[in-house]
């Protein structure tokens, strides 16, 4: 199975990957005290390396450092040649293929399909902020762990 085929497999199994990730996220957020003890800075390089391998295989992840997969049906928006993070451009071909790379399915056609199978698929409606290029190459997992654990520690800041 080539990389591109794996990427399409992941979108087809967006529901499965979503629940897997939710469990995984719960664990890494809960382990925040441990990460703190080791030091987030020290963990950055090794964790980013693992994240790159795993998500690279599953999603052709480009390590933007601000993962959007949960809001894009598990179809990585950084594989869109225009890096669109809020939906498809107007150039999608009649067969659903990409305007820029005709041999590839449009990343957002896939994202829409993937999101419809997901429990939290509605997240595709959220308006995404512009990419922060200073985060490129950094671990999204650690960032989420740190931010969510931090928000939980502050009573008002509690998200869900």
């Amino acid at each position, binding site marked *: 199975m080539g990389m591109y085929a794996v990427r399409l497999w992941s979108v087809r199994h967006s529901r499965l990957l979503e629940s897997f990730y939710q469990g995984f996220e719960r664990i890494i957020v809960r382990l925040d005290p441990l990460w703190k003890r080791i030091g987030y800075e020290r963990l950055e390089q090794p964790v980013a390396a693992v994240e790159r391998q795993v998500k690279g295989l599953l999603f052709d992840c480009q390590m933007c450092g601000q993962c959007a997969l949960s809001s894009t049906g598990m179809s990585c928006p950084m594989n869109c040649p*225009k890096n669109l993070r*809020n939906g498809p451009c*107007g150039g999608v071909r*009649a*067969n659903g293929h990409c*305007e820029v790379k005709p041999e590839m399915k449009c990343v*957002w056609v896939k994202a*829409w399909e993937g999101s419809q199978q997901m429990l939290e698929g509605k997240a*595709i409606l959220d308006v995404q*902020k512009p990419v922060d290029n200073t985060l490129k190459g950094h671990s999204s997992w650690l960032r989420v762990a740190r931010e969510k654990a931090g928000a939980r520690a502050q009573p008002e800041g509690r998200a869900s």
Partner: protein
Amino acid sequence: MIVDPLYDPGDPLPPLPGHSSRGRLERVLRSGKFAVTAELNPPDSADPREVFERALVLSEVCDAINATDASGANTHMSSVGICSLLTRAGYAVIMQISCRDRNRIAIQGDVLGAAAMGVSNILCLTGDGVQAGDQPGAKPVFDLDSTSLLETIRTMRDEKRFLSGRKITVPPAVLLGAAANPFAPPYDYRPIHLGKKVAAGAQFIQTQYCYDIPLLERFMARVRDLDLHKKCFILVGVGPLASAKTARWMRTNVPGVHIPDQVIARLEGAQKQKLEGKNLCIELIQQIREIEGVAGVHVMAYRQEELVSDVISASGIMKNRQPRPQARRPAKERIA
């Protein structure tokens, strides 16, 4: 002479409560009139007269002129340049901004500059890929996308700050527009995507060329279900096709253009293809006008500007509307 301010092409007009801009287009749209905008073909030249000549033809029949930003990824005179010329001459313009060629630093600066020149309307676009144009070796930028660009300019206007949070003393008073393509997949997602753009700040929409009324009707039905036609003004894109050959060329080479086979067959079967293309365009405008929730049309007559005025008068959409007064009038006569 007393001029109805609605038809005064001079920007800015006196501010009105609840309006984002001081432009004419917003007044026409909010007053519920069927609006007409038209695209100016940018010259491959440094001669301002070419811009003025083309604008004069269009301004006689439309409420605002679109200044394109290297559409199709082909280099032409810039939208900033065209807007600078046209606002000085008193025309109402829609400045197009594509995310393909400039990053957030350049774009935010252009927005301030544009508003300072008297631009009242900005259309936020992603932009066609560089592969589509005459310079496929160019570096694509795509730092923002059309949705985050809308949100960026809305923040500049309403919260008086840049993306960075830095303060803006006088915000850009612009009406924000976005594009929509009801004629490209994923069809079910298109109305939802429109909703996302409205949530990000889009107040008017200009669509891709429409040659497929049933597809447009399907799209508009969903738009009405979502109540989006009450949250933004939707102008449907139209344009005369010069021949069956042009139509075929367009649908293979211009990203996002959908022309059904029946349309091409109709042109092919006609004695005078150019005339048939014009008649088809007039018919489409009349059908589009009947669709609930459509606020106007956006005419894109690629290299056929001379047809725009015929098409618009023949379709009857500007009936009972005064033609616009002379664009160039002494400064003292303009409303400051």
